[in-house]
Each structure stands twice: as structure tokens, then as C-alpha cells.
């Protein structure tokens, strides 16, 4: 096979990964828009993936139905978790989401019907590059609208000052639970797309470390604006691929980049302040440009080395 083909197929894979990871990160963004702290979105995506996978594999459902079913399950889990943690301190609520993830791991692990430790397999391949990016575009648009909707404003009021929000007549518990559940549904949708591409979903993917990863993606990109989530999900997926060293080396670099950038731009890379408005932004922009240059050069020079 000519080198160019491998490279293309390889980047196709990476970009599909980046696409559904961006979708799950969007879910994280929506849930965080009302001020919740969540490490449960990996588990939400997992719940969606298991649900969607079962629907297509065992019930012969078409993908749209699977997506709907997955999102619904995510929504239900989200609303329950949201209501349970709404009156808790931020960090304790975060712990609730952590506990939820760990419980989901154990459930997935111990139910033979779900494939146990081996995970859910035998799912048909239904996800394509275009489908992922179509969904991403639709979701970005919808969430963009959400940000300027009544619910979106209410959510931000709850995030910035719950007491003032309550005084303004906003039902804080309801808004927080609802937005948390909507975000969970979006993440679950990403999970459905994922399993129909990777064709397997394992319990480990639901745990704390994966959940933390989505939290990092959202905050890194900038949790105050929808593009932040897309940017974080996208760059931090593609970044390790550009850093073409051994797996350990690229994660070392990845970690270092995370630390440096969050210190330089604590509000996340993308904010409402236009890029270039201050030194940090310009710095991050330049870094991004350099990375893009490497993406082009690296992709062509040493194709298909990994994976």
C-alpha cells in the first residue's frame, strides 16, 4: 500500500476519534454550564455506548434509534445524578459523579450480558467520518443556541451565584439537574457514535481517569464558551498524535503542555475575549500555529508509525 494511503487512513481514524471526543466534551460543557463539576461523562458516554450497541446488535435497531435510545438513557442517568447532587458542595457533588462512574464500571464488569471484562462486542460498524462531523456540527449549533436561550442564561446565573439566581426566581435545583442531564445525553450520544466505530466498549472506559480526561478537555479548551469544548476535545486528541514519540514520551509532553497552558491561560484556551487580546492568548495562538505546521509536516513525513 502506498504510504500516502496509510497516512490518510490513519488520519481518518484520528479525526473520527477527535470528532466523537469533541462531542462528549460538548456534553461536559453543557453540564458544567450551570456550575456542576463532573467526572461522570465518561460513564455517561459509556452508558450511551452500551445502550446503543445493544440496540443495534440485539434488536436490529437502525443507528438513529440507537442514538436516540443512548441519549435517552444518558438523560435519565443525568437527571437522577443531577438531583442527587444538587444540594451538595461542589467537590462533594464531584465525588458523587466519581462514585457513580465507579459503580457503572462495576456494573459493566459484573453483568455477563454486557460482556463482562471483555466488554460489549459484535456491534455493527455504522459510524462514518461524515456522520460524526455532521452530528458535531448540529450539536455545536444547538448548543450555541442554547447558550443564548433562557435556559442557558439561567444556567450561567446558577453557576455564577446560585443564591442570586434563586432570588431572581430561578429554580436552581431544576435548572442544574436539567442542564446536567442534557449534557449527559450529549455525552451518551457521543458514546453511541464511538461504539459503532471502535466496535467495542469495555468497563475501564467508564472510570474516573477517563472521566477526568473529559473534564480536562473542557476546562483546557475554556469552559465558558462552546468553541472551547470543541477546541479542547479536538486539539488534545490530535496533539498526542502529532507528538510522534513513544507512547510514554508523548504523554510526558502532553502533560507538560497541559500544565503550561493552563497556567498561562487559566480561563482555558478559548474565551470570550478575542484571541490576541493579551500576551497569553497570543502565545497560545502561536503555539497552535506551530503545532498545525507540525501536523502537516509530521503527517507526511513519518506516516502510520503508531497504532
Amino acid at each position, binding site marked *: 500500500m502506498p504510504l500516502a494511503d496509510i497516512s490518510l487512513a490513519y488520519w481518518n481514524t484520528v479525526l473520527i476519534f477527535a470528532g466523537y471526543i469533541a462531542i462528549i466534551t460538548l456534553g461536559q460543557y453543557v453540564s458544567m454550564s450551570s456550575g456542576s463539576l463532573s467526572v461522570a461523562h465518561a460513564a455517561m458516554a459509556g452508558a450511551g455506548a452500551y445502550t446503543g450497541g445493544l440496540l443495534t446488535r440485539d434488536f436490529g435497531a437502525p443507528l438513529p434509534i440507537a442514538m436516540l435510545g443512548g441519549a435517552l438513557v444518558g438523560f435519565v442517568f443525568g437527571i437522577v445524578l443531577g438531583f442527587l447532587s444538587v*444540594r451538595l458542595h461542589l*467537590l*462533594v457533588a464531584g465525588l458523587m459523579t466519581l*462514585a457513580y462512574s465507579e459503580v457503572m464500571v462495576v456494573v459493566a464488569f459484573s453483568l455477563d450480558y454486557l460482556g463482562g471484562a471483555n466488554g460489549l462486542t459484535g456491534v455493527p460498524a455504522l459510524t462514518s467520518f461524515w456522520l460524526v462531523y455532521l452530528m458535531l456540527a448540529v450539536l455545536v449549533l444547538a448548543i450555541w443556541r442554547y447558550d443564548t436561550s433562557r435556559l442557558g442564561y439561567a444556567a450561567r446565573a446558577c453557576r455564577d451565584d446560585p443564591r442570586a439566581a434563586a432570588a431572581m426566581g430561578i429554580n436552581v435545583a431544576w435548572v442544574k439537574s436539567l442542564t446536567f442531564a442534557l449534557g449527559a445525553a450529549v455525552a451518551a450520544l457521543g458514546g453511541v457514535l464511538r461504539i459503532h466505530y471502535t466496535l467495542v466498549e469495555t468497563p475501564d472506559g467508564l472510570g474516573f481517569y477517563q472521566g*477526568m480526561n473529559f473534564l480536562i478537555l473542557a476546562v483546557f479548551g475554556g469552559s465558558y464558551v462552546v468553541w472551547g469544548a470543541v477546541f479542547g476535545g479536538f486539539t488534545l486528541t490530535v496533539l498526542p498524535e502529532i507528538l510522534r514519540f513513544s507512547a510514554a*514520551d508523548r504523554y510526558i509532553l502532553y*502533560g507538560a503542555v*497541559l500544565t503550561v497552558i493552563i497556567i498561562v491561560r487559566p480561563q482555558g484556551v478559548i474565551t470570550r475575549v478575542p484571541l490576541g487580546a493579551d500576551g497569553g492568548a497570543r502565545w497560545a495562538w502561536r503555539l497552535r500555529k506551530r503545532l498545525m505546521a507540525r501536523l502537516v509536516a509530521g503527517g507526511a513525513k513519518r506516516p502510520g508509525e503508531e497504532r
Partner: protein
Amino acid sequence: MEQFFQQVVNGVMVGSSYAIVALGFGLTFSVMHVLNLAHPETAMVGAFAAFVVATLFTTNLLVVIPLAVLAALLAGLLIERLAIRPTRGRHILTSFIATGGLSIVMQNGAQRIFGVDPVRVAVQVEGVQTVGGVIASNMQLMTFGLAVAMMVGARYYVRNTRWGRATRAVSEKHEVAQALGVDINRVSQLTVGLSTAMAGAAGVSLALLHSQATPFMGAIFGTKSFVCMLVAGNRHIEGIMFVGILLGVLEALVAGYISASLRDMVAFGILVLVLYLRPAGIFGSYEHD
């Protein structure tokens, strides 16, 4: 009944390690208002330091343990300088990510240097103690003693020393403390240094008990000590100790009587229940102002 007490004893031994890691986690959080995700990684540093010293130099515990604790402390000071000091006073998630990045660097750095597979830490302590059929190895007792010594030392420091007093003052009102002449960077270093030294002690204990160290062993402590900290609240050092040991015991009992795979979940379940009944933690609040 004997088996029950045996499980309790084993649980206390493991739980004391959770407790000192959680204590450092909580101390750093309550004083600097920073979640140090790289904190559990310093336990791993302690374990690998023990491995290096034991392999290259000596297996004398009086050398191995202090050097391991020292290595963790130095790692802690580096974390403080790189990720905690620059994120102090900012949103908690900022420190979360900055230290999280370092934790990824440390895990993979250790993997780079020592490989993915566990390395053997060949330090032996012979002998067991038996009381009424309940057995505890001398090694277990020694690591337990180390944990207790660390907790007592930390308590003494915070309660009875000049910098300990300054630490409590900073934890409560850092601006006032600074205006009274307290160098907050010094407090930050002392706090993180003490915390990571304790984590290092936990790491070397684990390495000695299991005779091995792995790059990702910090994760074992990570979530559980975080849970302990939140459940206990951070008002009282004794509270964190108690919850850590209790968690160890519960885990041992669940693993012994129900199923090993349920261990993590049941412990979580009970802890969440506690939190749900007392959102501020059992022993007090970690909300400030």
C-alpha cells in the same frame, strides 16, 4: 471471629496508608485551596526511590525509608513551584489541571525510566506477631508505626509550632496572615513538602509490603484518599485518620466476606451515603469563609 479480627487488622494496616495520603491531600487543599492531583504520584516516587536505594546501595530500612521520604518531599517541592504556586488563588479547576498535567508527566516518566512492569523491591523484614490467633507481620507493624508517627508528627507541627500556627492562619485568612509577616510561599512549600513526605511514607510502605513498585501505583491512593478527605472534612487531622483507617477496614471486610471485585464499590457506596447525610463531611466543613 478470628477471621474477622484478622481482616480488621489487615484493613487497619492498609487504611493507615490511605490516611496519611489523604491527610496530605486535605492539608494542601485546606491551606492552599489547591487540589494537588500529582499528590498520589509522590507516593509512587517514594516507592521507586526505595527500589533504587535498595537495589543499588543498601537494604537497611533506616536508610531506605528516610531517603524515600526525602525523594517524595523533593518531588513535592518541585510540584509546588511548577503547578501550585502559579495557580494559587485561581479557580480550583485550574490547579486541578495544572497538577493533573504533572501527574501524567510523572506516571509516564516513571514508566519511561523503570518500564511498565512492576519492579521488585527486595527488602525483607522477618517475623510475625500473633495475638490470640490474629497475625500481623513485623513488616505490617513497621509500616503502621511509620504512618502513625507521620500523623502524630503532622499534628504536632500544625498545632504546636510557629509555622504550624502560621499555616492555620493562612488556611483561614491568607491576606491577614501575609500582612502580619507570613511569607505565603514558605507556607506553601512547608505544607506541600510535609504532605508529600507523608505520601512518600505511604508509598514506601506499600512498596515494602508488596515487595514491588509500579509507575501507576499512585492511582490506588488517588481516588481513595480524595474520598477520605472529602468524607472527613478538613477541620481535624484525627477525622481524616479515622476515615482512612475505617475505609481500609471496610474494604478488607467486604473483600473477605463478600467479594473482592465489590470491594471498591461498596466502600464508595457507604462513603457516599455518609456524605449524603452530612454534606459537610463527618467531622466538619471544608467550605471557607
